[in-house]
């Protein structure tokens, strides 16, 4: 078995970008991963434009609205996303199948509460693919569920005027038929 220096990870030579979360954790990620986060990309591009001459590769990007927990998950998701894309560069159908498979597995390890946190982070980072995936996941989690379940899921409360909710329930009574048990 060859030692590590003889078989370097092909991606290890790429530029790294350091992200610092609101809870002061530092993540060093490959540029390709960081650039999927449009907010980071924007920051990175602006920095580069402002410091053309600096030439340093130690960019540290603060993420005051993202905690380390969701960020770690988003980085893992992003890496896998890029990997699947690279592996199926010439076959979109295969890529979609692999991605679906990965996403199904992914959801097995995520609590519904975490999804909200992930959406917030993906939204702040403007990471479109992840945002789409998490929104789809939440939509399917609340699909065919009762109004009470949806409120609890999002931490919402009924804020209707007296009688208004009852009226809506009556008007759309048929849509309340056959919903899942909470």
């Amino acid at each position: 078995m060859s030692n590590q220096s003889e078989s370097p990870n092909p991606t290890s030579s790429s530029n790294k970008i350091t992200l610092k979360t609101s809870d002061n954790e530092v993540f060093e990620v490959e540029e390709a991963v960081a650039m999927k986060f449009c907010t980071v990309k924007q920051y990175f591009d602006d920095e580069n434009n402002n410091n053309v001459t600096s030439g340093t590769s130690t960019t540290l990007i603060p993420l005051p609205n993202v905690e380390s927990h969701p960020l770690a998950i988003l980085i893992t998701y992003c890496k896998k996303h890029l990997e699947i894309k690279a592996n199926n560069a010439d076959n979109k159908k295969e890529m979609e199948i692999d991605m679906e498979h990965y996403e199904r597995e992914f959801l097995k390890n995520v609590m519904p509460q975490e999804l909200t946190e992930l959406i917030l982070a993906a939204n702040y980072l403007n990471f479109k693919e992840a945002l789409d995936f998490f929104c789809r996941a939440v939509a399917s989690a609340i699909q065919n569920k009762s109004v009470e379940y949806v409120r609890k899921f999002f931490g919402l409360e009924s804020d209707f005027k007296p009688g208004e909710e009852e009226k809506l329930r009556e008007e759309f009574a048929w849509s309340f038929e056959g919903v899942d048990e909470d």
Partner: protein
Amino acid sequence: MAEAERKRLRSKPELPEECMREIVSRLNPKEWCRGCAVSQKFREACESDENWVRFLPPDWLAILSRSSAHLHFTSFKQLYLHLSDNPILIDANSMVILFCSVMFLEISCWLLDWLCLASKPLLV
């Protein structure tokens, strides 16, 4: 952000409106009708024209203009639900019917299907 604020968010993160809209847009007419009773904000997202129009045929305007029915609607939700209760006849001589089904999530029904005329959504 203060530690206390972070803790609060962690215990009950509240989604901004745009995220709520993104999620709601991935549901369907039946969910949107029920979702109206969740909260005011959720209702707004559930009633968005952008969502409902996706469940109408892309050329809905051209189709409606081929019907003798005079439809008055102020939102696509209203139009969709109206069509699901009241199929309309288009091109009277060729007997094509436009129909939306909220229960089966069909976009439209082009065939002359007498079942469609049992206007009320069939409950499963």
